[in-house]
């Protein structure tokens, strides 16, 4: 159960650097886009799904807060932040020119070439769009085994107003949108009209045939999931056992560097640290018991 203490596949080169806030843009009442630029030098390149530990100056909160890097465009490091507590509220109040420190990139991200996979399904729930957008950006930049046309994106949101999260993917693809509690317009139509009413997972199954023009056998599909824990669990339980499924997990973290063992989760291979062995874990390796048995209805 403690097999993984310090069993580190690849050393993680990271830096702790001062950044300036470039812009804080409110997407919804509780979602902001945070654009930051390095004050001195650039951190090492991040792999898709890696994260940064953000330190707020001024002492409002003590520990750093972990956030997935959405994209790095030039020197601009972008994060998408849902306001849920004290630290994220402080982030939402930041103004251009304010200083931050960014520690990262940290953790183990999504595999760039999942064995055997020809197609890639990105299954995002809410602000889980952040790490998956970083995957799509890596695909578009030719850093993975996939071409952009191999990738299908399903974005599940809770309320219609969060449809703006689709913007994170839009430079490269138009996500299939699923709205759990859709608003309706005067004529009673779901807003936005293109949206599937339900969860991202429901949408994925309902539209499975449409995701790629030609049918693809499950064993040639990799699925990357990011979203709240119940969504990850549902995806691990329902997606075909032959598909290679990877999920980006979250747990309260203190260090983010593997020192404190605060972020440990129990898996089939023992206790793993989400900040180091994770945040991306593989169903095959870490949660094989969740996969449906071959032939089970999903």
């Amino acid at each position: 159960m403690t097999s993984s203490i310090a069993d580190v596949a690849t050393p993680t080169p990271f830096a702790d650097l001062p950044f300036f806030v470039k812009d804080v843009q409110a997407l919804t009442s509780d979602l902001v886009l945070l654009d930051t630029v390095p004050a001195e030098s650039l951190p090492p390149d991040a792999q898709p799904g890696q994260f940064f530990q953000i330190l707020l100056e001024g002492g409002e909160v003590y520990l750093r807060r972990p956030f997935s890097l959405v994209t790095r465009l030039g020197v601009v490091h972008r994060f998408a932040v849902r306001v849920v507590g004290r630290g994220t509220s402080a982030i939402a109040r930041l103004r251009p020119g304010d200083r931050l420190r960014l520690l990262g990139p940290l953790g183990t991200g999504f595999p760039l070439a999942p064995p055997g996979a020809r197609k890639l399904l990105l299954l995002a729930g809410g602000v889980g769009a952040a790490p998956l957008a970083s995957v799509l950006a890596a695909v578009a930049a030719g850093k993975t085994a996939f071409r952009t046309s191999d990738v299908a994106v399903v974005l599940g949101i809770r309320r219609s107003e969060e449809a703006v999260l689709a913007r994170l993917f839009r430079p490269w693809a138009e996500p299939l949108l699923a709205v759990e509690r859709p608003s309706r317009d005067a004529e009673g139509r779901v807003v936005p009209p293109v949206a599937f009413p339900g969860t991202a997972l429901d949408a994925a199954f309902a539209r499975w045939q449409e995701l790629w023009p030609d049918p693809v056998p499950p064993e040639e599909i990799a699925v990357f999931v990011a979203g709240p824990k119940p969504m990850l669990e549902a995806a691990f339980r329902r997606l075909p056992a032959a598909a290679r499924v990877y999920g980006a997990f979250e747990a309260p973290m203190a260090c983010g560097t593997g020192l404190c063992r605060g972020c440990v989760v129990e898996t089939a291979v023992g206790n793993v640290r989400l900040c180091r062995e994770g945040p991306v874990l593989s169903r095959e390796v870490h949660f094989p018991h969740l996969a449906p048995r071959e032939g089970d209805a999903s």
Partner: protein
Amino acid sequence: MFSSESDGSRRTPKSVDLTVSLGPLRLANPVLPASGTFGYGLEAMEWLDLRRLGAVVLKSTSLAPRPGHRGVRVAETPCGMLNAIGLENPGVREALALVERLPEGVVLVASIFGNTEDEYAAVAEAFSRSPRISALEINLSCPNVAEGGLAFGRNPEGVARVTARVRAATSLPLWVKLSPDTCDVVAAAKAANAAGADALVLGNTMPGLAVDRRTYAPVLANVTGGLSGPALKPISLRLVYEVYRHVPLPIIGVGGISDAEDVLEFLAVGASAVQVGTAALRDPFVFERILAELPAALRAVGVDRAASFVGIAHRGGLRALAPSEGRGEAE
């Protein structure tokens, strides 16, 4: 006369001697990571030359592996955090294998933990057989486990029993780590001294609880956890101050230390060395920063040996330094 800041009249020693003696052990500098916030050093060696540290204190280790607590293990509190890791560790055998991977020249202190006196002794013996280990630290005070540590650490009798037992099991320098959650820390420190400790580590986390404002249940799966970080600093400073007055053992201070100025505060109240825990979780480069700033900080107060600053708060502070040594009183 008209302003209260000090000015240019300081002496500025050229080089600063950071070496410290902790009883039989001599360290190159007084800055150590605290147990449990540095693993077995294998992560940090990726970004830090461990030989630069005064020593490395390993994660508290028990005889058999321990899975630790489930669920949420850390919580933030004002100027600090709670942890309920539950002493997760791979057991002493695996721990010894792990430290083999550390570079030569790193001074290692093993932190030992047991559910019984026998177990403490067995862990001590196992570590003592390794030539890599330079000292043992007895963790008597972890508040996260019902059976062990805290029961022993809370009263002087328990401290004396475990210390004596471990003393008999090892010839390594022996440090005893005490907690603020004790009936009488001076009595506990005296008991450790009488039972053969070579140094005292003061203090440890204080039991606390955080409530989740979304659910109004405790944040930690274990309900309570140990408070650490700057919030704890005044409590640890007080422990060091009190024990320094009454017990003639070298003290290693720990609790909320984040920068070189904090190190000076702990030296001033009587610590010969310090450990840095939570601050290293917030900033993995904190050791380099402290080590870079420490000589200048000592020079700024006019001393050229860290050791000569130890305990000056008991002698009136900077006033105690001879005019040639020390910047004198600010006005």
